[in-house]
């Protein structure tokens, strides 16, 4: 299998001359309209560099992951509908503003997805959070649903599905199946993800063309064990136990 090469380009703000822009590996692009990749700013690349580095300690890993997760949540929330709302400001002007419309909930795919709950709560204080446990079945080597606990009224909510790593996408696809089976419309699901493989992102986006994928970075590819390359190791281990 020939290894696809990762795109390398200069990153940085426009006002800086090209000679002052450092070069880094940036996200692979995915030509699916429902895949939204965060702007590849030097800061985002630096944050990703921190969490990929095997020498980054757990406290830093958690802090820098959280910063990226908050960016994902902010970007994800921007896909939710708003309605016009006009208000009068404290100095007596009218402002044609908007009001957040509809209720949301988070659903984390255990256990790595749970690491994203804090970031979600930083932006949406009292958000309800459901959980889904999907494990790989040792016999069939296919993902299997072990457990789920979701808000009763989930069918009426917008769902932010949380999983930091999207490799083959098996668990994420199954999680979306679970949500749809509970009556959540496909286009009311947003999948928030830190790092995806190109094949995983493409496959997921094709299977569920109405689910919006918000990711920080699409990596180079998968290795023979289906780990993301270069990836960052086991996200759950690095966040919870290492």
């Amino acid at each position, binding site marked *: 299998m020939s290894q696809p090469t*990762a795109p*390398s380009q200069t*990153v*940085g*703000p426009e*006002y800086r001359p090209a000679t002052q822009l*450092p*070069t*880094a*590996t940036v996200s692979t692009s995915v030509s699916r309209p429902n895949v939204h990749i965060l702007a590849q*700013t*030097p*800061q985002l*690349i*630096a944050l*990703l*560099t921190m969490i*990929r*580095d*095997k*020498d980054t300690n757990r406290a830093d890993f958690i*802090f820098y992951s959280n*910063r990226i997760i*908050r*960016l994902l949540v*902010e970007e994800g*929330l*921007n896909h*939710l509908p*708003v309605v016009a*709302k006009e*208000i*009068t*400001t*404290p*100095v007596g*002007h009218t*402002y044609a*503003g*908007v*009001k*957040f419309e509809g209720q949301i909930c988070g659903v984390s795919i255990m256990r790595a997805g749970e690491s994203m709950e804090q970031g979600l709560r*930083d*932006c949406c*204080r009292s958000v309800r959070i459901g959980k889904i446990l999907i494990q790989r079945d040792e016999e069939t080597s296919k993902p299997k649903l072990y457990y789920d606990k979701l808000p009763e009224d989930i069918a009426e909510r917008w769902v932010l599905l949380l999983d930091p790593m999207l490799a083959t996408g098996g668990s994420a696809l199954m999680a979306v199946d679970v949500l749809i089976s509970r009556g959540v419309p496909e286009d009311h699901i947003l999948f928030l993800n830190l790092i995806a493989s190109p094949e995983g992102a493409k496959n997921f986006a094709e299977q569920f063309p109405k689910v919006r994928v918000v990711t920080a970075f699409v990596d180079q590819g998968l*290795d023979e064990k289906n*780990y993301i*390359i*270069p*990836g*960052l*190791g*086991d996200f759950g281990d*690095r966040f919870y136990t290492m």
Partner: protein
Amino acid sequence: MASAGCRSHYSPPWGNASIIGVAGSSGSGKTSLALAMVASLDLPWVVIMSMDSFYKPLSAEQSKQAFRNEFDFDSPDAIDFDILVDRLRDIKTGQVAEIPMYSFEKHNRLEQTTTIYSPHVLILEGIFALHDQRVLDLLDLKIFAEADADLCLSRRLVRDVKERGRDIEGCIKQWFGFVKPNFYKYVSPQREIADIIVPRGIENTVAISMVSDQIRKTLAHKSMEHQQELKRLGKIAEDAPLSPNALILEQSNQVKGIHTLLMDPATSREDYIFYFDRLAALLVQTACDFLPFTPSQVTTPQGNVYMGLKRTAEASAVVVLRGGSAFETGLRRTIPDCRTGRILIQTNYKTGEPELHYRALPSNIAQHGLVLLLDPQMSSGGAALMAVRVLVDHGVPENKIVFITYLAGRVGMNRVLSVFPDVRIVVAKMGDDMEDRWVEARYLGC
């Protein structure tokens, strides 16, 4: 580098400090007189500087003489006029001046210095305040404090024994050996060039109120000049389009939704704080894109290599009090251990003129990779201009300063950027020019 073109000049109210010299015999009550003038003014912009700070450090031999009370401290030669003139020039031009500290117990200059910054009026007091021509050239008012010689001697005895740890015999030896002859030789002739001679020191309330009135007039004049300066810069700013160095946060649905909540007076305070913090974190995050980065190769736990970036400098922050403190929660979400300086700039409600009351900045701020200046609202830009000027005076390069604000008008931003074209402004929402300040009042609840 994107610059807004030509650079306008801005002189803060301390830009041309008035310096008042108070000379007089030792024990004539110069210090009390200066203190009485400051007390009668009761303003933070009037500062006293004693020439005692400028005694030359003594050599080992001189030091022995000094401990035997045989060194002549009352001759102009004992004073380091070169350093004094340098520091006075710094103060006159509104720069930061590091003033030496002199120990009378050790007869030597101490390691540490005190900083004098931004006085509108400086009172220089010392027996030779009117001695050196270079000093005289910098003085706006020359005062000579006169007192009876017996009174001078008794005051000096009390002070030197009580406050400077000397014995009576030594003091009397110094008085007749040095103080008295030097008085006739060097101190007394200064009367001739004084503008005002004040007899009887602090008892002379007429003289004190006369000088205070003079200082008050000077301050009022400076304040008026400063306001005119701001108006002039406003005129320049009015006609210009918004400078490219002002970066407005992308008005996404979430950002607009947060604006709607923040600007709606019906929003609860709890919600206001929550959403302001969220937006503050986004603003700080955006400003941090101005940090320098360099390529950095890392290895992942699986042994893969990733070619990423590494920050090469740290950002620190300076909070413009009191409003800027509303940004601190959001700041610490992005940089938990951010070094944070503070300056208090209050806008005088009578004149609309910003006034600098307090500053506490990290000592090495000039070396920081990026300094985020935090103030939630910019209306006329006067306070912002002053805050940037304070940082520049403390050695922070303009292009390392990012001014972060929630609400700002075009004129205010242009006013700042016409004076400091290499500064950057990150703003969440464009507001009206000259909009009243309300953002921090909502956050802080008063």
